[in-house]
């Protein structure tokens, strides 16, 4: 294809997106669109499956049977969501195994928040309330994104995830209405998860490399800073209901902006974790790579068995 032809195709492509038309797997798309989508969707999928680990860690210790089944169902949903997203990504011509390879070798990123440890039961509450809360803010706009398979996966994810945040909030509420010891546990969890949750919405707009292009492709509808403000504004009143204190002495309502002002985020910590030096980065990767390697003989066996049975069938048909 000549450069001119590509230009004209690109023009048509951008016009389609502007008209809110969806792009489907076999449609022509600029290479950069494909690559950006593989990066974002797979990053999203990786976050789901690495995100299973801090919570999965508490399944056997959940304090009641009711909490145990809720947590199991939630972590299972995360596996499901990872699966939907890997599937969406595969429509762009990359296999799940390649994507795993990228994750396992550290080439692909996942949400940094999961590199913090889940230390107490209250962390199950804080993760559901804050981390899923922040994730939902990120995800809801993606139900409308331009790439069809991604948008469809996100619709399913958002629908299923609606119980996740409530589940977390309910845990917090129960703790806050419980004994002083329980409330202290809840406050401690909020203290530890608050700032990482704010960081989860990404670097500030002036440091964010992908925002402009992503806005055009509807991979993003709002900037990181806008999302962060939205998250804070909706979460602070929820903390009030719980009777917990947000660990930010600079946090105060700004009448003029009709929003909360908040303190400086420790971006050094953010970059440290993103670059692989958070408290749990190594542990998380060890768990993922370990599960994958331990599973290899199982996957091979199932494939060998399927081939054997297929061959038998064909032999019988002759």
């Amino acid at each position, binding site marked *: 294809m000549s450069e001119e032809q590509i230009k004209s195709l690109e023009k048509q492509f951008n016009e389609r997106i502007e008209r809110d038309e969806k792009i489907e797997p076999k449609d022509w798309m600029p290479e950069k669109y494909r690559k950006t989508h593989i990066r974002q969707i797979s990053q999203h999928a990786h976050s789901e*499956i690495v995100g*299973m*680990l801090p919570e*999965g860690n508490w*399944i*056997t*210790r*959940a*304090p*009641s*049977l*009711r*909490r*145990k*089944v809720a947590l*199991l*169902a939630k*972590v*299972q949903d995360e*596996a*499901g969501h*990872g*699966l939907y997203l*890997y599937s969406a990504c595969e429509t762009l011509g990359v296999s799940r195994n390649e994507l795993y390879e990228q994750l396992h070798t550290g080439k692909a990123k996942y949400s940094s928040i999961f590199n913090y440890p889940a230390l107490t*039961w209250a962390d199950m509450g804080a993760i559901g309330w804050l981390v899923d809360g922040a994730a939902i803010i990120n995800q809801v706009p993606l139900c409308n994104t331009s790439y069809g398979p991604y948008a469809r996966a996100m619709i399913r994810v958002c629908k299923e995830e609606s119980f996740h945040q409530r589940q977390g909030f309910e*845990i917090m509420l*129960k*703790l806050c209405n*419980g*004994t002083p*010891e*329980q409330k202290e546990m809840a406050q401690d969890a909020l203290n530890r998860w608050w700032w990482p949750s704010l960081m989860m919405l990404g670097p500030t707009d002036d440091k964010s490399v992908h925002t402009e292009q992503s806005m055009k492709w509807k991979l993003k509808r709002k900037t990181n800073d806008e999302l962060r403000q939205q998250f804070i504004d909706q979460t602070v009143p929820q903390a009030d209901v719980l009777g917990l204190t947000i660990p930010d002495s600079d946090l105060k309502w700004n009448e003029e902006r009709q929003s909360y002002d908040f303190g400086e985020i420790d971006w050094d910590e953010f970059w440290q974790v993103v670059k692989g030096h958070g408290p749990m980065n190594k542990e998380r990767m060890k*768990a993922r790579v*370990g*599960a994958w390697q*331990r*599973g*290899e*003989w*199982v*996957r*091979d*066996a*199932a*494939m*060998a*068995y*399927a081939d*054997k049975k297929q061959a038998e069938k064909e032999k019988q048909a002759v």
Partner: protein
Amino acid sequence: MNNNLYNYILGIADNSLILGQRLGELTGHGPSLETDIACTNISLDLFGQVRSYFQYAGKIAGDGRSEDDIAMLRKERDYKNVLLVEQPNTNFAYTIARQFLFDAYHLAFLGELQKSTDLTLSAIANKCVKEVSYHERFSSDWVKRLGDGTEESHQKMQNAIDDLWTYTDELFHQTEADKAMVEEGIGVDITQLKDNYYKYVSEVLEEATIEVPDIKYFQKGGKQGIHTEHLGYILAELQYMQRAYPNMEW
């Protein structure tokens, strides 16, 4: 309270509780995303069953004890599960072999429990039997895949069956509560399930090209609360919160 009925229900439910707990350990660590989801589903089914049984047991006890009190606040000798279900997830072959050896029993058991004259138990069995027939389908399929897959998987499956076989006989041991409940038409006469169990299990293993172990000595004791050393660790996790923070609501 009817002590025999209470103990009988715990004997059934503890199997699901401990096996569910074992499967819960695997969530997030399965050999593929799809298999991970499947095992978690089985775990969820089992805990759902546990809740129905313990809620009923709580009612029978009639002293306000909750499902969680029963699940998490007994001492190690008071758990009545069979030794089979507490065996560890040594590798995926053990997970599958343990599941299959239990599912084949569990399915036959629930089929009979549906006929119980105790209407609550028969209703619970009615619901559970559908779940467990799926479990059995899942685990027997995987026994065949691993048994007749690659050389490596065959060996691993054979080892798992060899190691776990010694825990199968206990499935058919009657406790005092069992005997009393059979007499009252409430319980299942598990001794009657034994022949069909071994016949069926052997058929599946044969199809999986796995040799059926031929051993004379079997392990027992779980039903009397004499467990393997594994159970203590399972309980340490299961009970941790309730023990560390007693008398609180979650």
